[in-house]
């Protein structure tokens, strides 16, 4: 469960300051599927980065299952990212020189899993997203949807408690978008994940149990 208390994030840019999040207090129970919407520059991605332990708030506290992330050092935060949080990016962010199988295996490196175990778990993850036969392909040899499936497999192979997705369907056509969303929903249901999706797409947001709208750093619930 996430607990955010009075979280603010201020960026200093040359001669001005930008408040991306302002006094956000929020609770996200385990196993919930949450969609975060809002205009560009409203603070969606910043909030996701806070939840993903990729950044630290200027003020406030973030807890994940009782662990106060804001008090952890960089190494510990990295460790939390490596074991508890899976992240899917809009641009897939696959390493172009590694095969699909190897890209998935990179997520197991922080866990220091043995090579054989890494290979076996990565293959299973790829099969779970329907890409078992494409394991040896490079990202450049895969379609956008396939690349996002690989990214999802990479996020899930370490069996995290939380899956964060930043515009996971933003670069995909409608048909592929629906495929990816079905895949994510299925995994969420099957694995009991906490799934938090940042999206512009209302069709995607409507699939979520809970919808949050963020504008000028303020978060509100959408009925």
């Amino acid at each position: 469960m996430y607990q955010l208390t009075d979280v603010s994030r201020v960026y200093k840019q040359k001669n001005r300051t930008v408040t991306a999040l302002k006094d956000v207090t929020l609770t996200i129970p385990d196993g919930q599927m949450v969609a975060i919407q809002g205009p560009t520059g409203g603070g969606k991605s910043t909030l996701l980065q806070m939840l993903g332990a990729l950044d630290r708030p200027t003020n406030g506290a973030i807890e994940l299952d009782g662990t106060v992330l804001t008090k952890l050092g960089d190494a510990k935060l990295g460790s939390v990212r490596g074991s508890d949080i899976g992240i899917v990016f809009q641009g897939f962010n696959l390493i172009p020189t590694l095969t699909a199988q190897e890209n998935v295996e990179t997520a197991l490196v922080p866990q220091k899993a043995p090579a054989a175990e890494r290979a076996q778990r990565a293959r299973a993850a790829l099969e779970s997203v329907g890409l078992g036969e494409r394991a040896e392909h490079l990202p450049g040899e895969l379609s956008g949807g396939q690349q996002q499936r690989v990214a999802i497999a990479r996020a899930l192979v370490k069996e995290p408690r939380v899956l964060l997705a930043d515009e996971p369907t933003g670069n995909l056509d409608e048909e592929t978008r629906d495929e990816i969303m079905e895949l994510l929903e299925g995994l969420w249901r099957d694995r009991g994940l906490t799934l938090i999706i940042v999206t512009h797409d209302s069709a995607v947001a409507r699939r979520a149990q809970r919808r949050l709208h963020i504008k000028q750093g303020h978060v509100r619930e959408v009925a």
Partner: protein
Amino acid sequence: MFGRYLRRELGNRRRQTVIIAIGMALAVALVIVVNAVSAGVKDAQAQALASVYGVGTDITVTSTPQRPDGTTGQGGPQQFDFGAQDGSTSTDGETQEVNQSRLEVARGSGTLTAANLATVAKTDGVASATGVLSLTNSTFSGTLPTFTQGQDGTQGGFAGPGQSSDSGSTDSAPTGGADGAGGSSFGIESFTVLGVDPTADAVGPLSAVTLSDGVGLDKSDVGKDVAVLDSSYATTEDLAVGDTITLADTDFEIVGIVASTDSSSETAANVYIPLDVAQTLSGEEDALTSIYVSADSADDIDAVQTALEKKLENTTVSTQADLASTVSGSLSSAGSLVANLGTWLSILVLAAAFLIAILFTISGVTRRTREFGTLKAIGWSNRRIVGQVAGESLVQGLIGGAVGAVVGLAGVLIVNLVAPTLSASVGSTGGRMGGGTDAAAGAAPTAAASAAAGDGTGQAAGGFGGGGPGFGGGASTSSTTDIALHAPITLWIIAAAVGLALLGGLLAGAIGGWRASRLRPAEALRSVA
């Protein structure tokens, strides 16, 4: 994962890998070639010096050259004196055959004493020391008019440039002499002689020779009229073991022939005789022209040099390094070229290679910002990312080092196959090494002069004993040796060169990795968004 990721990255960025590897390879190859050639030049210099000063000689002590005192012996002009009864008169009584040989210290040379040698030997850090007396033997031989010709019959001699003396008769045409008209024909020949201590063989000129025939000088030769000849001189003069050679009108038995350890060079002198005999014949009792010193260890050389300079006045104390500066010729030029251009070129290329590697690595890290941001986002530690970047750079350096080692070895092989011949001249005229030493350094110091005097009018014959440059005193003061350059290769050089390439890779990797580790994942991901 580390190995696969590294292999894939290097394989997919071939151009960068090749450029960095080529830069490193060039630097490594240059370092190997320059170091090998430099070592070869040093060996050649040592070889050139050894042919003159002997193997193991660390320091030489010579007397500071002195102003000629105008008398015979050291420093004075060459002079031959003939009495009325000298030589043999021809049967017709009109010509006089003369032959006189002198053994003298080279003009302008100062001398040391046995006490100096004892002082040197007692100095801390001196392992062994020996003294030598460097001399020039000059022989005057030829046909002159009978010494009584044109005179009143009571006194001979030469009074002027081809003219009869005042006391002589002037009303009759000159007769006799080499041409029957009062003329002369004579030749003057000189060669170098080195008086060496037969009991000392650890240091000195004879330590750098090999015996090619007969025997060398040993303890039993002290006080004996025996000589060992330089092989080149023996060949030129058609002399062999068992023959005799005349020094200062004394016949010496030739007991041995020696050659330089380097087949292309000559030894330090034409003739070697026992030191005590050389001192007696030259009238330089107790005198030495040089002292050769071997230090206990290479580390002691500077200290010994300083100690000797304090203890010995009016002397020049030179180390091998000082002696090396007396080497001139193409060997010296090659040495300067390697020391200056080669070394700086190596440093420049090495610096450029390092810079290229660092810039490419930093550029690579910048290009891979999203990649490293993603890896951080999925939990990779900074150490892991730094290790990945450093590993990639290290392998690039290793490839460059390996290729460079091969290219460098090929370069050295080519140098050794071509084996350029370098000429080395050692010593200088009456120079800082002392005239004696320099004369000793004259490996080809045979000076021969001849004159045919007289034009039938009795006006051309030059006077004798009137000074002039002196024969022998002007004997050659430098030894010119041709040495084929051999560039040695040592494992140390290869290891050092490859080590430099690895260091370059590591440095580039460390800097690139440091930059990668400073990336904050959110910023890294945001920067490409």
